[in-house]
């Protein structure tokens, strides 16, 4: 019985993870020139999070990059990302789609 419960829980969990992954939209890798401190990173994240459709923002200060994941059915264009980084006071140095 215990085994059956475990299997059922595992199936439910994997279904939830798969659903969440499928529900996420495309992700983009943004290179930010000038990013050099944690406080500045938060300023950039705030501007990017304010864009419609953004689901998640993950910064790597060492790499000077931000991965922006969009909600399902939305997309991010380079001009919008560039404006957000500029409004935070920094410079967009690269913009590539990182995954679907």
């Amino acid at each position, binding site marked *: 019985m215990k085994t059956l419960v475990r299997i059922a829980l595992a199936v439910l969990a994997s279904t939830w993870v798969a659903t969440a992954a499928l529900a996420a939209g495309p992700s983009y890798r943004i290179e930010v020139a*000038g990013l050099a401190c*944690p406080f500045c990173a938060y300023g950039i994240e705030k501007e990017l999070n304010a864009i419609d459709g953004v689901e998640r923002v993950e910064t*790597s200060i*060492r790499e000077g990059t931000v991965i922006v994941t969009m909600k399902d059915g939305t997309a991010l264009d380079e001009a919008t990302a560039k404006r957000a980084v500029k*409004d*935070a*006071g920094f410079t967009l140095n690269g913009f590539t789609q990182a995954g679907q």
Partner: protein
Amino acid sequence: MVALAAAAGVATDARAAPQTFNTALPVGKGNFVFREQFFAFEASDDPSPADRDLNVRGSIPVRGYGVTSDLALFGILPWLGKELDLTTPGGQRISRGTNGFGDAQIFARYTVFQKDMRGSNFRIAPFAGLELPTGEDDDHDSLGRLPQPLQSGSGSWDPLGGVIVTWQTLDYQIDAQLAYKANTQANGFEFGDEFRFDTSLQYRLLPRELGPGVPGFLYGVIEANLLHQAKDKIGGFNDPNSGGTRLYLSPGLQYVTRKWIVEAIVQIPVVQDLGGTALEDDYALRVGFRGNF
């Protein structure tokens, strides 16, 4: 009282920044930044028979707003508590003082040069503004009107300006500021104009190696503040017991996270070339925090 001006030297930006003056790092468009700094200042090395001992405690709240990523507006309204102990010519030890809001400062800072590179940036940003007579400048105690330097406010409208240069990398940050404040006359008294040259080095102590994400940074800080103040004028005449040049060296620590910063620094006078019996500083201690919202 030159020392008081130095002790009240204001760091305004809420970025990783110097603790005794400003930085050229940006305030995001439409964003507010907040900073609160508490300070304690003491000056007791009095060459005169009055054996004066001045204590100043206060807080310096700063608000900043990014109109654009290049143009930021700042407002500062300090709260000051001043107490001066001295010996009268008759040999009696007395204490005089006051507390209340000091003179507010408002100014604009504009980034005229910006070079962003991977993991580093360089900026030049001039600023200009005004110190407003918001502090009480006609306070009295049981002995009568307080001397002007002991008032919370100056009563005068004082323009100020300067330029800040910042070079920031992942490992360290260097800031430098040149600033001038032209003090004007009020109540028959005019504080001497102030010239400042400030420098700061912040070096990342922890983490030694950067990992993934955005870790908190612990910076070791060393700052230097050179302050020259012209002589005060009383009734249009120079006060020989005022003005002079001071140099402070200031070690400190600063912990920076994505959303907040805590910091502390001690300003130690290493050179004091003052006019007449102007009171020499002992130290100034600053403790503060900043928030990003």
